[in-house]
């Protein structure tokens, strides 16, 4: 915050109070933004917002919100997981190609293993070699993509099958509600409960706020990082399973389009990319906002390039606002 601004804030207690209120309740402006976007959509295409549209939006927001969970958890410690989309793709692809060989349950297990492995390697690099998570996860993502391409050679003849159960979970609807909520509601509840009420969740905040202080207080940072990135890989893998059920066509770039939005969803949701601040409930709203925004941009026939510019701008603007509001670096 510049000198002029901080004096302006000090002089204007109302402004300060609003800033603090919004800082304490980041959900309120997010909900307002979401409703605003839905309003704009309804204004542009009257009648588009109905029960079916809402169910569809939720259906597409869920995999995004799950992948953004990886970003949220790692960002709480000041990290990021750019390999999440690759891990999810690998799980989805490996699972679908293993189903004809070993059957559904084993295929799911075999599919999840590489995702967890990627997470463990990330955790190792971050915990022991102190590589910046961004560079570490970028590297493992690259290696993972290479491995997937080699793997694909060996399964060209077997073909791929998306299990009916996953297709039901990904695309089906019961009483108008998407079935994926069956997976997502417990998942989100567990995460929101875990981030504030369990020791592990609090350690994430502690490491993100001040790593040195946590180390001195006896936190074994390497254990937390290793567990965190492995967990992030696992969540990414589960997202891949759900997403392949939604898309029903396994490919080598299955979940990759969700990479950018997953980072943006966590940032919009109020999780600080510098660590120690934020939570999963904001991320869920962020994912919903991005999904509605996506529909809006499709209606406006916005080209792919402009979309990417917009996502980049959103990340930059939102982080700048957070830096200004909290005056942290």
């Amino acid at each position: 915050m510049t000198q002029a601004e901080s004096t302006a804030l000090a002089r204007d207690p109302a402004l300060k109070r609003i800033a603090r209120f919004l800082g304490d309740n980041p959900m309120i402006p997010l909900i307002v933004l979401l409703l605003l976007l839905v309003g704009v959509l309804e204004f542009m295409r009257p009648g588009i917002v109905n029960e079916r549209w809402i169910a569809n939006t939720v259906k597409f927001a869920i995999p995004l919100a799950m992948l953004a969970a990886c970003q949220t958890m790692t960002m709480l410690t000041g990290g990021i997981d750019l390999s999440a989309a690759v891990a999810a793709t690998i799980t989805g692809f490996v699972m679908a190609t293993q189903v004809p060989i070993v059957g559904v349950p084993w295929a799911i297990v075999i599919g999840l293993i590489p995702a967890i492995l990627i997470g463990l390697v990330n955790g190792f690099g971050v915990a022991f070699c102190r590589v910046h998570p961004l560079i570490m996860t970028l590297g493992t993502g690259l290696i993972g993509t290479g491995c997937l391409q080699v793997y694909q050679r060996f399964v060209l003849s077997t073909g791929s099958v998306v299990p009916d159960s996953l297709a039901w979970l990904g695309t089906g609807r019961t009483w108008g509600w998407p079935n994926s909520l069956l997976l997502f509601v417990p998942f989100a509840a567990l995460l929101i409960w875990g981030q504030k009420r369990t020791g592990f969740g609090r350690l994430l905040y502690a490491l993100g706020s001040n790593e040195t202080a946590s180390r001195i207080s006896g936190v074994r940072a390497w254990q937390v990082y290793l567990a965190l990135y492995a967990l992030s890989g696992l969540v990414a893998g589960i997202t891949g399973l759900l997403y392949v059920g939604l898309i029903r066509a396994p490919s080598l770039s299955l979940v990759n389009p969700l990479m950018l939005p997953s980072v943006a969803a966590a940032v919009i949701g109020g999780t600080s990319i510098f660590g120690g601040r934020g939570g999963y409930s904001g991320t869920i709203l962020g994912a919903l906002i991005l999904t509605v925004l996506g529909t809006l941009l499709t209606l406006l026939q916005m080209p792919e390039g402009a979309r990417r510019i917009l996502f980049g701008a959103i990340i930059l603007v939102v982080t700048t606002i957070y830096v200004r509001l909290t005056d942290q670096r």
Partner: protein
Amino acid sequence: MNRVLGKHGWTLGLLALLVLLFGITRIIQPNFGASGLDSLSRAALPFAFATAAMVIVVIAGGIDLSVASMMAVAGVTAAVLMEGAGTGGTLFAVAVVLVAGLAMGALNGALIVVTRVPDIVVTLAMLFVWEGVALLILKAPGGTATPWLREMIVGPLVFAWLPKSLVFLAVCLAAVWVPLKRSKLGLSIYAIGSDELAAYRSGVSVGRTRIAAYALCGLLSAIGGLTLTMSTGNGEPIPGPYLLASVAAAVLGGAVLGGGRGALLGPVIAVFVLRLVRMDLTLASVDPNVTTIVEGTIMVAVVMLGGVLAMRRRRA
């Protein structure tokens, strides 16, 4: 002699590694010669410029994740402008690309200075933005490169063993690096990288120096993108794997993530080492996808090693 060895030990070690790798290449492929050297040097060209770009901001204590995306923007801009252009048009295109590179880099730097958001976050956001800009300029690979410009990096110059592309690389890097190293700006870049506060108190304008470092990074990325278009003959809007490669080569070349240390020669030799490893694997007829995995693993290992070394230094 000892002083030279101590100061340039790392670079000399890399050079020895490079010579060793050339020896291995000769064993794998006995008729590896001038043409092999030429194709190696041409393949290394965009990587070398990306690495040089990264090295400058790393010395200044930052990092620029948008290098590969800026290269894509420069590449497609060049390809679009050169479509059906004559000599004048081509020169105009080159000028536009260089200015655009400077401007992109300066914008990155200015955003870091003005928003006071950490460089890694700003350049991550700008990575997406420049990627989008490249896609807006050219949706799919297209455009052309003027033939005489392409000729500039194909074949040997005077001696059969001296590839034109290597001369091109040396001339471009020297044109940026030598004046920089001798100027006040160059010194300031090293200064803000090793201790920002001390630099500020010694009268260095930290913000302006940082913007200049990022602008130079943008300029070198733009040249990298230009060479990409020159060697492939068209513009590719999807950025290549230059980000990780440039960080790995910078670290392998002796630039310390965190700033204040490093030079240009070591990282450029490191680029050739990494390219030669890839070439050897290809010559040994290893599956190209496996080669990608090996290359990625080497780069990650190098970055991890760099992390461990930086940690040791901080403790010492």
